[in-house]
């Protein structure tokens, strides 16, 4: 039955994805729930919550609030948070409750902005979609906010958004270790550049990039739900910096704040490490900022492996990471047949013939029955549903699936173990 999990357990929902993007951006995050969703998001889907302080609140909705539609009460509740925390914006994150009662998020945001003088956005998540959808919505809304900030500032308006733009411009971009980073001055100065949340829109002049100058590379889609370990964002930045010497990579939303995102159009290049970041990177690509994907398994050239043919491999993960693993394996073992699959969004541009997006537990089970794989690499939780299969299952945990249960000590450990497991399985 579609929607029934007999073996698997729920993945990170869209609201967790939204918070994963917003967490470090310096806003007040209000999850419009009764409390349980906030507990799940913070306690089980956001590892940074245990080590980095953030202004995350539950709206504490109760039945009477839903029955009477007491949005005015919600506005009143925002007062305490707005009074005690110096936040750059307020973000309302949707859950099933406001979804059922059709809360007018836009109206609440407009009123909040007027009342508290803080820009407000909403992420219309429902708790019923997967995390990557929430991430995309969050990127979209934050980028729209930043566009509004620029527009208002350019027009000389005295609005909270204009004020935020001035503040972010003054802050400038900093690398993860706090060093100021120069942007792409040629593209930024005197031009009407605006970060736009719409993939197809925008009127930006082409950015002129020069990798020999001290420029920054923006990394999209880097969240704990997509990356293997706590230090993976740092590891990604190191790998990208190695690939493009003289640049400073900035992972938006991880070890960086809103000022960096505000300057996204000044990046000389973009790197995308999960599907949720593709839309923004593609919008910037149309403006002349090139993009790459992956960077998970860059580094020293791998030795070619033993010559192996005929083995069939399935990689189950978020698509960009699965494709990175595939690329690595193909260099090492050209004769392998490797498919990628995911329960989460898959972009057609990166799909090959036998790649598949799975919509249900039954899809997963049927896939394994139909394709006769010798090796599968995926989250250990997926294995519960395919106990009939007797090939080599290599553990490749994903936080959005198993949370912190199988979290590795480090990014290096994760990749070391994965490579070792795959090598043993392929070459046995």
């Amino acid at each position, binding site marked *: 039955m579609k929607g029934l999990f007999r073996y698997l357990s729920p993945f990170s929902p869209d609201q967790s994805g939204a918070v994963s993007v917003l967490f470090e951006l310096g806003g007040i995050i209000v999850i419009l729930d009764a409390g349980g969703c906030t507990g799940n998001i913070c306690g089980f889907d956001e590892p940074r919550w245990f080590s980095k302080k953030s202004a995350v609140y539950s709206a504490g909705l109760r039945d009477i609030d839903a029955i009477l539609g007491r949005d005015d009460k919600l506005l009143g509740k925002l007062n305490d948070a707005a009074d005690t925390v110096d936040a750059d914006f307020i973000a309302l994150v949707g859950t099933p409750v406001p979804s059922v009662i059709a809360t007018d998020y836009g109206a609440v945001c407009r009123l909040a902005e007027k009342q508290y003088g803080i820009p407000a956005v909403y992420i219309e998540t429902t708790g019923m979609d997967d995390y990557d959808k929430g991430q995309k919505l969050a990127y979209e809304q934050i980028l729209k906010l930043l566009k509004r900030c620029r527009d208002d500032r350019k027009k000389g308006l005295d609005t909270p958004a204009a004020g935020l733009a001035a503040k972010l411009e003054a802050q400038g971009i900093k690398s993860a270790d706090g060093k100021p980073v120069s942007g792409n001055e040629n593209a930024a100065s005197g031009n009407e550049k605006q970060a736009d949340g719409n993939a197809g829109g925008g009127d930006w002049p082409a950015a002129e990039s020069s990798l020999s100058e001290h420029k920054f590379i923006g990394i999209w889609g880097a969240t704990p739900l997509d990356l293997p370990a706590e230090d993976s964002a740092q590891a990604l930045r190191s790998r990208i910096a190695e690939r493009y010497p003289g640049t400073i990579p900035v992972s938006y939303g991880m070890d960086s704040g809103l000022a960096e995102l505000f300057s996204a159009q000044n990046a000389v290049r973009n790197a995308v490490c999960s599907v949720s970041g593709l839309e923004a990177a593609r919008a910037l690509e149309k403006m002349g900022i090139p993009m790459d994907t992956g960077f998970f398994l860059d580094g020293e050239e791998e030795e070619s492996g033993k010559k192996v043919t005929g083995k069939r491999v399935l990689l189950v993960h978020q698509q960009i990471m699965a494709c990175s693993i595939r690329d690595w394996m193909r260099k090492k073992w050209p004769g392998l047949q490797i498919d990628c699959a995911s329960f989460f969004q898959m972009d057609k541009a990166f799909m090959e013939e036998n790649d598949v997006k799975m919509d249900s537990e039954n899809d997963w089970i049927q896939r394994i029955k139909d394709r006769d794989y010798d090796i599968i690499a995926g989250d250990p939780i997926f294995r519960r549903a395919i106990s009939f299969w007797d090939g080599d299952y290599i553990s490749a945990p994903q936080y959005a699936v198993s949370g*912190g249960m199988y979290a590795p000590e480090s990014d290096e450990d994760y990749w070391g173990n994965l490579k070792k497991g795959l090598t043993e399985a392929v070459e046995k």
Partner: protein
Amino acid sequence: MIQLTEKAAQKAGCCHAKEQKPFSITAKELAECGKDNIPDAFIPNCHLIYSSPETLAYNSPGAIGFGTKRAGLVIPESVMLLVSPSCCGRNSTILSQTEGYAERMFYLLQSETDLVTGRHLKKIPEAIREILKVCDPKPKVVLICITCTDALLGTDLERICRQAQEETGVLVVPSYMYALEREGVRPPMVAIRKTIYSLLERKKVQPDMVNLMGFFSPIDPESEIFPLLKNAGIHTINQVSTMKTLKEYGEMGAANFNLVLDPLSRYAAEDLRKRLNMPYVELARLYDPDRIHHQYQLFAGALGIRMDDQAWYEKAAERRDAFAKKYKGKRFVVGEMANANPFELAGALVRMGMEVPMIVSNLTEAEFPYIRQLAAESPDTRICTGISPSMVHFQAPENIDAAIGKDAAAYCPDAAGLEWNGEKQPYGHKAVIDLLDALDQALQKGGHTAQARNEKAFYGSGLRGKGADKRTSADGQQA
């Protein structure tokens, strides 16, 4: 990343704005407010609820042991089908695996179309049939758990369950994880206690049988309550958490009366009283040997039985006096994520000669008897609540020697921390002795004592063995 505003620094009221402290109130002030005028900071619906690791258990009770879902599975030979948006089951993905009940949890995920059409409810019988196919042995009970969306839709789950039971032939029991009704008449953790006992039917009364109600995990078997009851002629003492089969569970229907050891079980006990004519008596969990002794005597007098707890009382009192002598004047912070009522425990510590500068806990009117006592004994004890938005600026009080409770230990990282929230439920004089021994150890060694981790071995299998342990794979083979 987070900075205090100018405005916050000038905020009036109980918050010391200039010092940028979170909301707090003294015991004296709180007692003067009275139970009908509890400050807004303690009423979750009046403000945003701050989310911090210290308050995780408020939003997600399963984080410290038992939330609605795991609690429901206390019924032996049961499994649970959570019918909800996927977000509601997310914590169960992790908790069920770590707590050992993953194979007893199933999920029917709602879509937006389901909300509009209600078709998710029609799927339940078929979902149960599919679950029964993969479980080995087959469960005898399937709990259906619904959440906030169905609360808003007004779903008649009882009718759905009756219909599913008719169609599938297995007992189908409704349960509710209605976080929206958190401060209502029947909050989720009260409602689930009623659910747990809902399958009991009245059997021929056994005069020497009692059910202990209140906890989802067993009471410390070395607690004196067991020999005291047995010596008083009550030879069969049941706890639902120790029942291995549905048949054993059913025998609880023969109990002469119920002993309610946690007020959250009062509603369930009242239901059994009305439904099965099974009376109940309430005994509180206390940490003052004098009061424990007095409570036992009152209980014995009410029932016309003899309960001679003198030996245990003297031992607990001796331990208390020795602790008091050794640690007189030590400063404690008490939290609510512990196997204790924080206000009662704070009062017991104060009477021992300790200082309790702070309690971090939510409260309801039920706590006011303890608060009034505390106001008389330690009027300057400050009470704050972890869920207040102002807690974003919480700074640990200075010179704290020990913190009791998982939340308090996290709030006071420099103090000796004792979590005291293991699954083995302390009760009676034995609880006092064990607590003081653990505190003694913590104060001597420093650092945090994760009682929960140490005691997990006692009930390490969690609920394993109480239900379907194995699943068959999609093609019929054993998992």
